[in-house]
């Protein structure tokens, strides 16, 4: 009888304990259920990519996600490690700025195999099914506009040099092709040298120093990014002919916007890293909430910044009304 009386007490205690335990587990699960978005960026050594990564992370945070930024240091092997970490850590989406158009495909495919969507930002990978969507600057069209302005400024004739970015990067060639799709219509505009400086300011300065010795009579330099435009301009200053040679860049970096205001550099193509980063984060959010229909490639318009309209722009973007 005593044993029978004890049984309901034991049962009640068990149910109470179970409820408490399950409730505790649920609370623990809800703490861990905050979804996570990884931002894997090619390099944090360049301020342009810092803006890209930080904007992507802060936009994802504003949408309610936990975020972590992984720096691949322009190294595909390190990028592979970052992907493995992101996959193993249970991230729900990856906002990705690749290091290499071909070499990064395998990393995106690994994430895809783990059912993690990948949204490329700014840099392209040469695959149409590895990433869920690629949000890219319309480099080609931006350089078409820049090429047209170049022809106008040069009055359709003169000798020029082209400084290319990384030869393995699609952006390098999309920019070059866009520029030449206009400039090559004008046979009196002659390219006297085309050389790579890897998107690097110091390399561009060195390249330009030697090119100026070989081709002292050049009239213009077209550079595949603003860092190289700054380096090329420094070489011109050192050679004492910065007033005779027109320099054109691409990116919309802060120092080049200031150089355009100071009439040192003629023009650049303004990319919008913040726009790309926010779009990628919004796409990731939509994917996590169930959307599956995304454009494989989404171009983001590039705007021509010249000495006439530079006051409308700041580094990496457009002034808002409060800044005007």
């Amino acid at each position: 009888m005593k044993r029978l009386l004890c049984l309901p007490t034991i049962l009640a205690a068990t149910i109470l304990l179970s409820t408490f335990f399950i409730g505790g587990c649920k609370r623990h699960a809800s703490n861990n259920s905050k979804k996570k978005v990884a931002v894997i960026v090619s390099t944090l050594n360049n301020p342009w990519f810092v803006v890209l990564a930080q904007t992507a992370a802060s936009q994802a945070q504003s949408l309610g996600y936990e975020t972590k930024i992984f720096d691949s240091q322009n190294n595909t092997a390190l990028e592979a490690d970052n992907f493995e970490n992101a996959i193993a850590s249970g991230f729900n989406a990856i906002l990705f700025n690749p290091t290499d158009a071909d070499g990064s495909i395998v990393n995106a495919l690994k994430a895809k195999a783990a059912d993690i969507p990948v949204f490329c930002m700014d840099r392209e990978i040469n695959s149409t099914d590895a990433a869920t969507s690629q949000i890219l600057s319309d480099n080609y069209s931006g350089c078409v506009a820049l090429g047209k302005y170049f022809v106008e400024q040069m009055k359709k004739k003169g000798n020029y040099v082209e400084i290319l970015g990384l030869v393995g990067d699609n952006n390098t060639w999309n920019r070059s092709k866009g520029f030449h799709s206009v400039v090559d219509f004008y046979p009196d505009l002659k390219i006297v040298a085309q050389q790579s400086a890897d998107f690097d300011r110091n390399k561009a300065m060195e390249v330009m120093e030697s090119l100026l010795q070989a081709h002292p009579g050049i009239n213009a330099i077209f550079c595949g990014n603003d860092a190289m435009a700054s380096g090329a301009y420094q070489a011109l200053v050192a050679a004492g002919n910065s007033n005779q040679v027109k320099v054109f860049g691409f990116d919309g970096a802060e120092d080049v916007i200031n150089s355009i205001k100071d009439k040192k550099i003629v023009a650049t193509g303004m990319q919008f890293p913040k726009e790309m980063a926010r779009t990628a984060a919004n796409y990731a959010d939509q994917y996590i909430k169930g959307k599956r229909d995304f454009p494989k490639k989404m171009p983001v318009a590039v705007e021509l910044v010249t000495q006439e309209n530079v006051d409308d722009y700041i580094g990496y973007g457009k002034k808002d009304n409060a800044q005007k």
Partner: protein
Amino acid sequence: MKVAKNIVLIAVIIFIGYHSVYFKKLDSIKAAKAATLFHASQYAQAFWNDKLIPHLEKAIDIMYLTNQLSTDTAKTFDTYSHALGIGNLRYFLVKGKGIVTSINENDASVLPDSSRQSIKIATEYIFGNAVRDATGLININEFNNTMDFNNVSAEINKIIRETILPSFKSTVRKENKVEFVGAIELNKEHLDLSRIEVIPVQIKIMPY
């Protein structure tokens, strides 16, 4: 017995060897590869004939558009502009009539009827995405890579350069009355209605 074994062995080697190597004509490989490639010029010509020309009747009058943009910019962009990508650059399909006020190296200035603000009809720099994007009839998901839709723009612009402009450039004179349909690019955030440049799709000189 040994002879039979060798015969079987040789037969197996021949069988495996025969089925391991295939010969195909290089021409057929090239043809198969070419069939999967995107042909921007064919796409552009089909777009021009089947979509763009029938759609020209929906072009908005340039004077009406500029008035609307001056009064309600955001709504006018939402209603009438298109673009394949995202950003501030948007494109409109426009039409108009006016008097040629000057013929310049790169364009013809035209004063539209009942307007004080001239516009330019481009005759030299036929570049960019204005005509490709202005109708809103091209879907970006039709393209697998960015160079394909860049090449479509280049091919459309080539059609204009080769078939629309030569007769106009050779016959147009100051004071001519012209009628045009074409595409314009405007920046949504940095709107400048004083520098409108029309890439012409149709342009004709009206009789006096």
